[in-house]
């Protein structure tokens, strides 16, 4: 070993690219390319939609109905993920039982199945004449071409993200922390509420956000099961559809400017919502990062 090697002043010339500015440049170029792919189509969308088109789109009763329908149903779908998805994630993380890997595969199924098939499957279950059709009618939750159909499809495609994210987050909680809590006198339910859930919350919330995003962007299943949404249940507006189906229709009818305007409007709302959550995390205003930040 000569003096230059031992000194470590400069890396051997052949390896300099791994540590020098080139390495950073490589990272910037690669991630920058991906970012461009994300941003450019969106910019194109905004470019094709002049501001006054956006304003008029936001004033249209049809667009408002579609927006309301989309946000309301996706909200209910996320609520269903909270009620059913989080407990399932907890169960998969904390318990061992025969056939658990089968259950885990089944949970991941909706993520990989083409969503048109999902709609079709549900369609065969609930079309008029089937027992399930009569049952859903009788309990006041008709599914075919109603807001409940929208919710059903959305839950199907979106809940797995909450289940999978919760499972990972619950599993990541240190078992010794939970044992300490129990030994200090907390029963299982108290430990869940005061320790397990607060520690897993950040991951669970990330899963819920993914679920919401997936629910809002759904179109395949809806084209089959709830192409047109008739008034009923919480929805009493005109016959409408979710925003994705609405935009698809406008586009099919050749109104490219309108399609761009409604898309842009929707993007603005969705982006604002995501930004709000991120800012909340940063400022410590939301509770799920406590302990990682100040003081």
């Amino acid at each position: 070993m000569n003096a230059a090697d031992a000194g470590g002043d400069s890396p051997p010339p052949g390896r300099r690219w791994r540590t020098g500015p080139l390495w950073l440049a490589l990272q910037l170029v690669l991630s920058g390319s991906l970012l461009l792919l994300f941003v450019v189509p969106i910019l194109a969308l905004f470019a094709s939609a002049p501001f006054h088109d956006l304003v008029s789109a936001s004033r249209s009763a049809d667009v408002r109905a579609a927006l309301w329908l989309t946000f309301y149903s996706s909200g209910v779908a996320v609520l269903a993920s909270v009620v059913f998805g989080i407990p399932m994630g907890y169960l998969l993380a904390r318990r061992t039982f025969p056939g658990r890997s089968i259950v885990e595969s089944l949970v991941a199924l909706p993520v990989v199945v083409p969503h048109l098939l999902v709609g079709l499957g549900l369609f065969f279950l609930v079309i008029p004449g089937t027992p399930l059709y009569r049952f859903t009618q009788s309990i006041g939750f008709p599914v075919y071409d109603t807001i409940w159909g929208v919710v059903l499809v959305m839950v199907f495609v979106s809940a797995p993200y909450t289940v999978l994210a919760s499972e990972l987050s619950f599993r990541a909680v240190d078992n010794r922390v939970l044992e300490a809590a129990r030994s200090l006198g907390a029963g299982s339910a108290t430990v869940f509420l005061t320790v397990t859930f607060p520690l897993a919350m950040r991951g669970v919330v990330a899963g819920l956000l993914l679920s919401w995003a997936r629910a809002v962007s759904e179109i395949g299943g809806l084209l089959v099961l709830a192409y047109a949404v008739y008034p009923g249940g919480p929805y009493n507006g005109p016959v409408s559809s979710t925003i994705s189906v609405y935009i698809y229709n406008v586009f099919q009818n050749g109104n490219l400017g309108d399609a761009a305007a409604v898309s842009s409007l929707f993007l603005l709302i969705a982006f604002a919502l995501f930004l709000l959550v991120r800012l909340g995390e940063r400022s410590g205003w939301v509770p799920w990062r406590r302990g990682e930040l100040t003081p």
Partner: protein
Amino acid sequence: MSHEWVVQGLEADLDHFHLGPVDLTLAPGNAVAVLGASGAGKTTLLRTLAGFLRLRRGQILRDGVDISGWLPEERNLGYVPQGLGLFPHRTVARNIRYPMEIRDRAGAEERTKELLEQFRLTPLANRYPSRLSGGEQQRVALARALAADPGLIVWDEPWQGLDVLARYELGLVLHELRQAERVPMVVVTHDPTLAFSIADSFLVLRTGQVREQCDAATLLRAPADPFAARFVGFENVFDPEALAKGPPGSLRAFLRERSGSEGVAFASPSLGPLPVGIVQWQGTVRSARPNPHGFTVEVLVDGLVISVRIPPPMAPPLPVLGDTVRFGIEPATVQPLGTSFT
């Protein structure tokens, strides 16, 4: 809260590991240190006491009442797991208040303040555990365990990851606590100095079996288990296989005559002028290096490597590699191992 604890014939299974039978008696204010190599079953014993592993046989009696069927949260133990188990999402004060909070105990605020004060944590009350040093985290864990007013403190590796000063401080705190509050303790440790500073008795485990159970004086004078012998400073430990060959009059034969079923242990022999009548051995220095307790020389004699410590002040010249040195082993200091498990 002072109780008398009696563990009778405790046995437990974890996967393919079997622990026990373990018998243990703890009067108010007593502390027992559990010793053993990694995988000996120390943590398994503590988790069984704490109620996280089911007993296969035996009883855990608190003041005569069998609590072995009770849930962990009903046992009222101050269990501090390895890694402490602090709540990362709660501040120091809220960690300490936790056991009182979940019981809706009146005066929780005042008691928290007292504990913060007692453990010198008041300036850190609003910090999160991730922002504390190792010693501070340890004090929080202890304060939190005491906030539950436990009947027994069960602590896995209290001194893990602490520097010398922090170890010393925590040792003092534990000692005071035992004196003042008379709370019995079961402590797992790898640290001899601190084990002796708080424990009245010792339990030595090996592969789930109790190898030795005695008070501090007995362990120091006559350890019966090879691990325990090393733990209390017998530098030279040999198993029967190492002593098997060796003609009469050799060092191996000398040790073999004094060996128990698990070999022998002896502390550092002395170099230099030896008392009359002590057999002398001669060997070659294989390594020589300083350490915190003086200077250690490894001498090769009759195929055995004997560790010889030269305590300070060390008179020059010190032996160097390849030197021939003479040393004597007092026969009475050679401890047979494995002969008795009291």
